[in-house]
């Protein structure tokens, strides 16, 4: 166009009808941020890089260990209901109740995270790893508590146990005696 205009001795026609948009708008910044992250993860990975890529290999092994443990514990705790003691049918009733509690907590934490994640202005990374570690700690603690207090199973009502009641009454009487002694000494 410019060459033709030069030959005719006239100014060239304006071809840029759309004015350039300002690059400082927040939406453009977000788009540029997304494009940079895309360019960072542009490298393609083969099937064999699961084994040969050091980071990927570590991630696969770690993820496999955690998931294997989860499946073992999930199905194992289901099968071990008979070893809890007490009525098996009551155990079978309490087990889904505990599951429902777990799923409720999961939904309560995860749904607001998803809502936050979908909102681009408040986009935050999901703290999945932190939650995973916390819940693993809970599992370890509860697993240890099953050995420390074997009578504390789902169906055996610990508070109603006669030995516990006797011990509790003995403790109360001891405390009463101590308080009486303290009063008399004053």
């Amino acid at each position, binding site marked *: 166009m410019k060459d033709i205009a030069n030959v005719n001795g006239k100014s060239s026609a304006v071809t840029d009808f759309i004015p350039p948009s300002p690059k400082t708008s927040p939406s453009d910044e977000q788009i540029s941020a997304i494009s940079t992250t895309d360019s960072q993860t542009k490298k393609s990975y083969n099937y064999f890089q699961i084994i040969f890529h050091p980071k990927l290999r*570590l991630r696969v092994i770690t993820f496999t260990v955690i998931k294997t443990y989860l499946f073992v514990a999930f199905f194992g705790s289901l*099968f071990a209901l008979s*070893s809890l003691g007490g009525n098996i049918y009551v155990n079978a009733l309490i087990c889904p109740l505990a599951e429902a509690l777990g799923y409720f907590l999961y939904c309560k934490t995860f749904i607001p995270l998803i809502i936050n994640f979908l909102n681009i202005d408040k986009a935050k990374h999901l703290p999945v790893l932190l939650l995973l570690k916390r*819940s693993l700690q809970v599992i370890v603690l509860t697993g240890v508590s099953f050995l420390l207090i074997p009578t504390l199973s789902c169906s055996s009502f610990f508070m109603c146990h006669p030995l516990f009641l006797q011990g509790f009454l003995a403790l109360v009487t001891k405390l009463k005696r101590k308080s009486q002694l303290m009063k008399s000494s004053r």
Partner: protein
Amino acid sequence: MRAALCFIYGFIYGLGNELFPIEVRCQSIGISDIAASMGGMFAPVVILVAETYGLNALFLFGSLGFIALFASHFLPKDPMNSLEEPDEGVEMNYIKMADHETV
């Protein structure tokens, strides 16, 4: 314990999506699923072993969680980070090692 397991169950799937790049996501999650299914098959064996040795089976499953808890420390703090960039934890360890060598 059961509630905590169910609580984790959803997060482990979310974590799998974040950990692996899209090209190898199916393969890596598939490998871990195979291993997990094998683990599920061995769950009754664990109960039998616990009963024979006079242990509480639930204690055994809880104590096995130590391994998973230890393994979770090897996961990157920012899974969405590219695989080519150094992880924060790895970098910190490298700095610590370098300081130790200089001392």
